[in-house]
């Protein structure tokens, strides 16, 4: 068990550095650099000296491997440098925006999982029944609706027509004068529409995934055996079927974590939820290397941790893995 985790950790470290090299190489091979963004195609003779100063400050005048080393040295001390666009320390910007994205996506995923998984498990139990077919149709319909369209529809109906919910943002402009309870309510009200937009499509994923897992298990011999030995339906489901259906769900949750972090650019943009998704997009567009690189590292680390966690959970959930780990 411990050896399994240790080995995984070692892999993770290698993978991490692989990712940093790959990201660094990728972003630097894209044409255009932060300085070209400043000068653009505009008819402005931006003074050479100022451009050179900017390049020097961000080590853009060094050869690529040296730039990489500068950057890695910073990363190991959690110094991601300053943004080229707004001159603010990147770590601070990410620290401010990351919780917002995590909160939004976390709530959306939790809701999607809480609704989707039980429905999936239930419909997988008796494939072909009305609940199974009905939920399949509804979930696929939801899944196929484009996010931006649903977002605008929700916005139009609830924020413009009815004026029940705020149109955009994370808090109201008068947030600061509210009492603590009212502030909380204000935040919740701002979250409803973006969460709905994020959650509806995820429903289908969770439901279909868990349905498939149960469907797989329910047809296996040991279930027949369990039924044959006279176990009640509840025992068969809870004790035998669902437990075994857990494994693919752990995988799914592991895969979900990167999405929690990277966020939905579209939802964040439409609802002006000032989180990581928009920052990422904007930093790539403006070739703000320090920000893009830092975000990639954060996402990569989180993904690695999540897959590590999934592996550990596997070990707990699946005796076979536990055994194999122990003997390794």
């Amino acid at each position: 068990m411990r050896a399994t985790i240790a080995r995984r950790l070692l892999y993770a470290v290698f993978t991490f550095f692989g990712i940093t090299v790959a990201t660094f190489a990728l972003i630097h091979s894209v044409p255009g650099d932060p300085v070209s963004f400043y000068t653009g195609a505009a008819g402005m003779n931006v003074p050479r000296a100022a451009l050179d100063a900017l390049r020097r400050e961000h080590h853009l005048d060094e050869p690529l491997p040296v730039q990489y080393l500068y950057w890695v040295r910073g990363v190991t001390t959690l110094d991601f440098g300053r943004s080229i666009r707004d001159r603010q320390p990147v770590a601070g910007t990410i620290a401010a925006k990351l919780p917002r994205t995590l909160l939004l996506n976390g709530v959306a995923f939790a809701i999607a999982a809480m609704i989707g998984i039980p429905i999936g498990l239930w419909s997988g139990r008796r494939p072909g029944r009305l609940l199974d077919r009905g939920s399949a149709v509804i979930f696929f319909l939801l899944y196929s609706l484009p996010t931006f369209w649903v977002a605008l529809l929700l916005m139009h109906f609830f924020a413009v027509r009815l004026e029940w919910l705020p149109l955009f943002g994370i808090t109201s402009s008068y947030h600061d004068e509210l009492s603590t309870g009212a502030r909380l309510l204000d935040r919740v009200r701002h979250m409803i529409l973006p969460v709905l937009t994020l959650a509806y499509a995820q429903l289908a994923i969770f439901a279909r995934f868990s349905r498939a897992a149960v469907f797989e298990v329910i047809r296996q011999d040991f279930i027949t055996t369990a039924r044959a030995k006279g176990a009640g339906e509840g025992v068969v489901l809870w004790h035998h079927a669902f437990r075994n259906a857990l494994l693919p769900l752990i995988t799914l949750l592991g895969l979900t974590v990167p999405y929690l972090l990277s966020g939905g650019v579209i939802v964040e943009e439409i609802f002006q939820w000032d989180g990581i998704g928009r920052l990422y997009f904007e930093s790539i567009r403006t070739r703000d290397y320090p920000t893009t690189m830092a975000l990639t590292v954060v996402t990569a680390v989180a993904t690695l941790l999540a897959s590590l966690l999934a592996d550990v959970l596997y070990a707990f959930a699946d005796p076979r893995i536990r055994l194999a780990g122990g003997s390794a």
Partner: protein
Amino acid sequence: MDPVSRWIVAPAVVLLLTLIACDRGEQVATPEESVDESSPRSGGILYRRLDVDISTLNPVLFTSRYDLMVAGYLFTPMIHLDADLRPVPGLADSWEIEDEGRLYRFKLNAKATWSDGRPVRAADVLFTLRKIADPQSEAMQLGAGFELLDLTRTRAVDDKTVEIGFREGLASQLIQFNYLLPIPEHVYGAGQFKTAFDGGRVVGNGPYTLVRRIAGKEVVVQKKKDWWGPKLPYLDTVWFKTLSSDSTAWNAAKIGEIDETMVPSDTWLREQNNPALKSRLQFLRFYGLAYNYIGWNARNPLFHDKRIRRALGMCLDTRSIITNLYGGTARAMAGHFLPEQWAYNPSTPVLEFDTSAAKQTFTSLGWLDTNGDGVIDKDGRPFQFEMTITAGSTQALAVAQSFQASLKQVGVQMDIATLEGATAIQRILAGNYQAVYLSWDLDPDPDPYPLFHSSQFPPRGSNFVYYSNPAADQLMERGRRELDVEKRRGIYQQLHLILADDQPYTWVIQPSLKWVINERVHGVKISRGWGLYIWYPAQFDWWVSAPPGGERAQTSAAAAAATDSR
């Protein structure tokens, strides 16, 4: 267009500081006509939109028009530009230009003070200029406008008089002083200059002071009741909300969350006659100093000959694009200068859509379809090229496809290459393209030297179409040194004809800008070239009618502003 595509379509927008214009000649309902004539009311809050969050409050380091828009409330520029974009006094009461445009002497307003009560001194102007000239400041925008600054001849004559020297005398220099918003040396003289404005403390000399700035959300400024300037603005508080999504901004304008926003053409065309909205929103449309064009890389043998460029231009069905794509809200163009500019020559002909004349030109130059494949060829090479458009704009794609279709009729094969913005810029500046669809935002000074003079090929300037005509060169050289506006107009009117004849670009359209403004906002006037704001007085003449009792945001925001400004 969403903000992303707007930046990508016009990379220059981000940098070239240019604002929005109008056309008084058209039947656009100017708001002064539509508002009630009750007298202006002092007080109230105006909610403005920031399409892009500001990157700094430091007016030396501004990079976008939004940075400058906010800074314009907190600081006063050396000179203002009036509704016709002509210089009028700002921080400087008066000025003299000597030594053929190489020396400017400004007399500062004697009453001008900083928000901490200290007087504005000539030394502050010097300090600001030194910061601009210092490469370590990375003052990209201002650095470009003051590239010719000669610090050795720049000095404070007395406490309120400053002399500023330049290595060359250019007629366009005066307007650059509109971007020069001096900052106080006693506040920003020490410490880290690049981050000095980030702490939230801003000492300026504008009619407003900063209440707060929350990155990504809002900037709030409040009127300084004892401001030194000639006329106190009406609005008590101006509340900028960062709102980058156009569709969300449109919804926000509808429910009164913001009082003004630019809207995309399709929204504007669809909604302008919506009776439910007409009572709540003023729909404005006007022309700015911006246009879209196709640039031909003249280093490519295909486009070296102006007859070919003209023939290609004749295959662009501008009228159809204006009618079908812009619902009639754009103009066909006669060359580089725009009707809003004094340099415009009204007798310049528009290159008309005429595929048969184009076909004749190609035939007369030996381009014939000898192998019957539908594409004309010469010396065994087919007439085939690639036009680059920037990703994210459906309109650019539609224009390109319309062009592609008419070119096909005359046997020219055009392929469309869609590139992401920064990538496109890099390729274009490297000369690694054949034709490109782009747009310009122009400066209020009409000097086209960086765009068309033969000394301005990249990387020195922006003549990336490699246009070179000695006659045009000579006019541009004379034009930028001529300080007499009437003489200068004559020079540029000649140049206008030459450029239109040579067609280094195919000028496509001048799109109009569409805005909605809440009906409670009054006194909105439109300048000739810069539209709604940044000229003087513009936004400082706006006022809002009293709220009809208990607008929640209105009252609570006022309370917030009051508590924060203690």
